[in-house]
């Protein structure tokens, strides 16, 4: 019985549509759970800046406020380990998702970012068995996710005939990606495809269009404007690609896992969620479900969490 327990969400950034969708999913599912008497409270906190130091302080404040569990999307996999350890020492359950932490006492609902990189290249290999030139758009320099995805991509490219001819940092922002791509484009030979990290596909497409070059196959990241663009291209000329990203609703999975742990269930420390993937045939369906300006999403229910826990055992 967890009806007396409280769970807090510690979030480090709210400045993009993915995070907003994540907070919204949490709000919806957690509010319902509180209404249903499953837990006594489920508050969400966001730091004012995307900084590990701020999030560490936030977690310390949560310890003081006496939450029973903290669900966490971390600014850094390692830099808040100190605070997480303190929470564990205080008897608090810590479940991290998306941005996971390496501290052993915490649970991790991981997305295999390396796998995400590999999958992009695998898809492309299937499309272009003869290989070709790839452009890589990375995220923000010095951040964990950026390194993981990039490592996955490079690893997989080794075993294919693809060539990475250029690599730029798009800082996960449409406009920065667009700028960086436009800058490197003139020096690139023909580009077959672009591997991305999510949220920068539309910018890349714009840059190619502006330079008057044929649009390569751009791997998308589930943002509504990317899907919309893809749909337009598909309708116009049968453009084909794939789109994959972690669903923002994974926060609700974090919520249920924390609830299960509080309930005394045996839960392995490492859980893995699949990506949310949009394919040529599911495009219309998912596009219709995605709100304007937001990101493709699924929310998880208690049963999904239980299934996940079961399968991990």
């Amino acid at each position: 019985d967890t009806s007396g327990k409280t769970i807090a969400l510690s979030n480090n950034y709210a400045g993009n549509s993915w995070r907003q969708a994540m907070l919204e999913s949490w709000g919806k599912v957690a509010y319902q759970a509180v209404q249903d008497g499953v837990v006594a409270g489920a508050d969400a906190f966001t730091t004012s800046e995307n900084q590990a130091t701020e999030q560490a302080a936030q977690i310390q404040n949560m310890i003081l406020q006496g939450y029973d569990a903290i669900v966490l999307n971390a600014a850094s996999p390692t830099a808040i380990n100190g605070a997480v350890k303190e929470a564990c020492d205080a008897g608090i359950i810590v479940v991290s998702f998306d941005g996971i932490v390496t501290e052993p006492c915490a649970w991790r609902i991981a997305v295999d970012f390396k796998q995400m990189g590999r999958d992009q290249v695998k898809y492309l290999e299937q499309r272009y068995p003869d290989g070709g030139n790839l452009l890589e758009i990375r995220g923000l320099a010095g951040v964990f996710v950026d390194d993981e995805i990039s490592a996955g991509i490079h690893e997989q490219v080794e075993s294919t005939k693809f060539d990475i001819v250029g690599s730029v940092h798009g800082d996960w922002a449409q406009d920065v990606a667009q700028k960086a791509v436009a800058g490197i484009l003139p020096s690139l030979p023909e580009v077959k495809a672009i591997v991305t990290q999510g949220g920068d596909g539309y910018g890349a497409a714009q840059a190619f269009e502006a330079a008057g070059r044929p649009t390569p196959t751009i791997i998308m990241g589930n943002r509504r404007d990317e899907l919309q663009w893809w749909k337009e291209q598909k309708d116009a000329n049968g453009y084909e690609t794939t789109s994959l990203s972690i669903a923002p609703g994974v926060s609700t999975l974090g919520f249920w896992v924390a609830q299960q742990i509080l309930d005394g269930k045996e839960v392995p420390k490492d859980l893995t969620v699949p990506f949310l993937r949009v394919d040529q045939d599911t495009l219309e369906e998912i596009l219709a479900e995605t709100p304007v300006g937001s990101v493709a999403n699924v929310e998880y229910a208690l049963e999904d969490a239980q299934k996940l826990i079961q399968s991990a055992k």
Partner: protein
Amino acid sequence: MNRDHLRILLPVLSLGILLAAVFYMQPRAMSYFGLNLLFNLAVPVALATIAQMMILMVNDIDLSIGTFVSFCACVTATFVQTDPLIGYGILFAAILVYAGMGAIIYARGLPAIVVTLGMSFFWSGMAVLVLPSPGGSAPDWLRTLMTAKTPFLPVAIIAPIVIAVVMHYFIKRSSLGVLLRGVGGNEQAIERSGWSVMGLKAFAYGVAALFCVLSGMALVGLATSADANIALRYTLLSIAGVILGGGEFTGGRVSPIGAVIGALTLTLAASFLSFLHLSPDWQIGAQGAILIIVLAVRLVFTRREALI
């Protein structure tokens, strides 16, 4: 009661009021454990604030503190951990670069704000080179030091007190401190007495760099690892801390105790805002508002100077 005492009164009062409010909202905070949680992340902020204070003291401003502390943290989590000799060597060289920057700024009459802005790109690049992705780990002694269970008072309280007292003695009591503050107060008077203003400025920058190094190390000790963006916020926090602590942008009017109190106040203000369950939308705005309010209150304490 002289002007210095008056100047320190406002920060002490604001910290007191804030602390009382936090204790009222969260009585749990009133314990060894609670104080440690409230304040341990204020230690690196306080060190960075002291660094900024050293620069403001000689009438300059440093916009590269955040990236420089990040760089120091990256070096600490990598080289200092694995090859201490090289690690300390890098940090020492960085301190020399800082001192040289101070000397050049004075000798060429450069605007410190632009030079440090340029240097912030430089340090940020260096940090990414040292540590391309988050990680590294804290040297054991550092971790032990930052998490030590000291009797009676937690490290989080002892460290700021030690920093404040040491710097108070250095800046406000030692005879070298007098000269440094004199540079901010009346550069010409210092020069007339035959001192090298350039040397003093370089020294002030060097000490600032030393405190940035300490800040980076303390941060790694608390966080257990580093990343290249770990301390970007310290630039703004440190300026705000000095000003909240009763310091002024010009005239060599700074107070180390005030600066430390300012840093604690800023950290506590963030906790206070989170205990308030203030909407995250407004948290950053609330920080701006606090800055504006305190600076506006200072108007009462300082004379206004007219254009002519």
